[in-house]
């Protein structure tokens, strides 16, 4: 499809105003802003028009799906190509100061609508009452830090954000390093660890029910693996998921099981990018494999380790569904976490204000991680 936002062909202007201070500077700035905003909006409208076809209920499903994929994939390429061509028609002096905004513009527009706007909406709501009508001051935040279930949830979440990244990244790194040295079967070995990540959450909960399942006497035989082992050892079966406070750990195991594959794949990619010459040189110099690992591999892939760990911490902070879908309620099991409280208050206990306040607390909790990232970004800039 064509992108009509592209201006009619005209030779690149030679008489463009130099981006100096004062009025022309303002004009250039306005030009930049209008380009960064107008073109994506125009292309977006064209794509939207195409979409009316996709709303046709009677169209053949194969054709609809085929068109949808073609338009969705082609549209985004057309967007950037068209915008870049449009910028080429600008006066030479303005061109390169506009182009960066064309590159980041669509990203910023989408994020503004899909994440920034909802955040502002939620911040406002956190100071409002249950129906997000009247303002109630700090009452919702007072609730967050006094309610016993909330305090429990905060403690549990602290456990999640420490233990899950530690084990997922640790095992992932160990495994990526070892699998890298396999002479045969590296792909198979890696795929088997990655496999859980391919399972949908519903699948994972079914999967681990088969491990932790407990049936009291008279309600059928125990078909859970752990209790099968307990019976095999001559012990009584255990209600694993009600065993406080260990049940928290059992739930964390599910997340580690699902996330280790992600850490492993990304870290493995980084390990493979280390030049072989460096590692070989170290080996020839008599470094042991452990030294190679500690002094060469880990420092080389440290940026990637940081990326993965940060991601895991944030993911663990947002953990919700693993706790939420357990048959017994999180309150009685003592397995509440912050994000789960938020959903519970929003969708089931119907208090918009409290849910929003909990969400705001989630943000605040992530600030240390952010500060770390920012410092790393600065360091990288200085090296360049």
């Amino acid at each position: 499809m064509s992108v009509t936002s592209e201006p009619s062909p005209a030779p690149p202007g030679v008489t463009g105003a130099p981006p100096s201070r004062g009025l022309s500077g303002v004009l250039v700035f306005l030009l930049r802003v209008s380009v960064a905003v107008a073109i994506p909006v125009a292309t977006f409208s064209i794509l939207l028009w195409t979409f009316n076809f996709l709303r046709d209920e009677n169209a053949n499903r194969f054709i609809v799906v085929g068109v949808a994929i073609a338009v969705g994939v082609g549209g985004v390429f057309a967007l950037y190509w068209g915008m870049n061509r449009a910028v080429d028609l600008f006066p030479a002096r303005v061109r390169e100061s506009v182009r960066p905004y064309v590159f980041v513009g669509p990203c910023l527009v989408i994020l503004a609508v899909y994440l920034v706007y909802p955040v502002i909406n939620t911040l406002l709501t956190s100071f409002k009452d249950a129906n997000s009508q009247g303002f109630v001051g700090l009452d919702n935040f007072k609730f967050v830090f006094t309610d016993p279930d909330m305090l429990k949830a905060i403690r549990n979440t602290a456990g999640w954000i420490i233990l899950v990244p530690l084990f997922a990244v640790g095992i992932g790194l160990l495994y990526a390093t070892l699998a890298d040295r396999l002479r045969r079967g590296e792909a198979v070995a890696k795929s088997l660890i990655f496999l859980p990540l391919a399972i949908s959450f519903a699948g994972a909960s079914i999967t681990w029910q088969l491990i932790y399942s407990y049936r009291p006497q008279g309600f059928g035989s125990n078909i859970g693996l752990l209790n099968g082992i307990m019976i095999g050892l001559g012990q009584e079966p255990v209600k694993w998921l009600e065993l406080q406070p260990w049940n928290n750990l059992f739930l964390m195991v599910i997340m580690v099981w699902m996330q280790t594959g992600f850490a492993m794949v990304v870290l493995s990619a980084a390990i493979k990018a280390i030049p072989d010459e460096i590692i070989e040189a170290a080996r020839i110099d008599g470094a042991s494999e452990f030294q190679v690992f500690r002094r060469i591999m880990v420092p080389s892939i440290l940026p990637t380790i940081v990326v993965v760990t940060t991601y895991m911490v944030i993911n663990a902070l947002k953990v919700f569904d693993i706790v939420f879908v357990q048959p017994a309620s999180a309150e009685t099991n003592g397995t509440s976490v912050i994000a789960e409280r938020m959903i519970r208050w929003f969708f089931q206990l119907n208090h918009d204000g409290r849910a929003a306040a909990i969400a705001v607390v989630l943000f605040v909790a992530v600030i240390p991680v952010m500060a770390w990232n920012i410092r790393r970004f600065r360091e990288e800039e200085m090296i360049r």
Partner: protein
Amino acid sequence: MSSATVEAPPKAPAPAPHRDRLEDAGRGGWFLRITIIVIVILWTIPTLGVLITSFRPEDAVNASGWWTALAHPFRATEWTLENYRIALGQGGFGNAFLNSLAVTIPSTVIPITIAAFAAYAFSWMEFRGRYVLFVIVVGLLVVPLQMALIPILRLYTQGATLFGREIFPDLSLQGTFLGIWLAHAGFGLPLAVYLLRNYIGSLPSSVIESAKIDGADHFTIFWRLVVPLSVPAIAAFAIFQFLWVWNDLLVAYVFLGGAGQNRVLTVALRELVGSRGENWHLLTSAAFISMALPLLVFFALQKYFVRGLTAGAVKG
């Protein structure tokens, strides 16, 4: 430069005898093998349980643990395909599978494209506010998806007004593929930008600078140089985003609905869970049907993955 394909020759000459144990492990010793085997077994057991359960008759599933089937692997009464027949026969799984494709492929390509352009700009282009903007983008990683759903749903169904003026039109995106693509793009972008900027930003500046000296403009550098060099990071994120979208239930349920034409596989699965309760023999087989494509994609992309990662190409 040596290749890092799976069949790559050993990286170092044969080890000298009598070094410490870990070194032997490095050349394929027992430590290496045992550790890998132990981890593989631990990680595979849960899935194996589901796979075996999905092929067992209903009565057997409820009467004994799945591992007991391993005691009689060749007894015909222990195995059945009935579960799969019923799960597939529930109807709607064909359309749901196609819909999942229509949702997942663009929802993977769109955020990657947008994020790669943005990551390039954040790494290699000079503009006012790039530091602050990048920090804001990464900061958005923390926005819990669940929090964004309701405001966006309101945007889709009634637009947004501020002080009585319409600031966002009502596009009736509810129930459309475009609506869910953009939502997935929005939720996936912070991570994509973060991962890709970390990778693209660590490309050697000499490569970029010399291309500039040769007269390449930013679009050419990006498309011809940075994207090919970034294939490992792009592939890693593509696999991840694909799986995330394919397995997503919440976003699909909220934006596409539970019953419409555009119902995806996970929603169909959920309906099966709802109507068939705790019937593990059906749930396990349905779960495996939904896993088929993600596994296929992973195996297909992994070769590309490994081949693209030839050592030294990136770090020069």
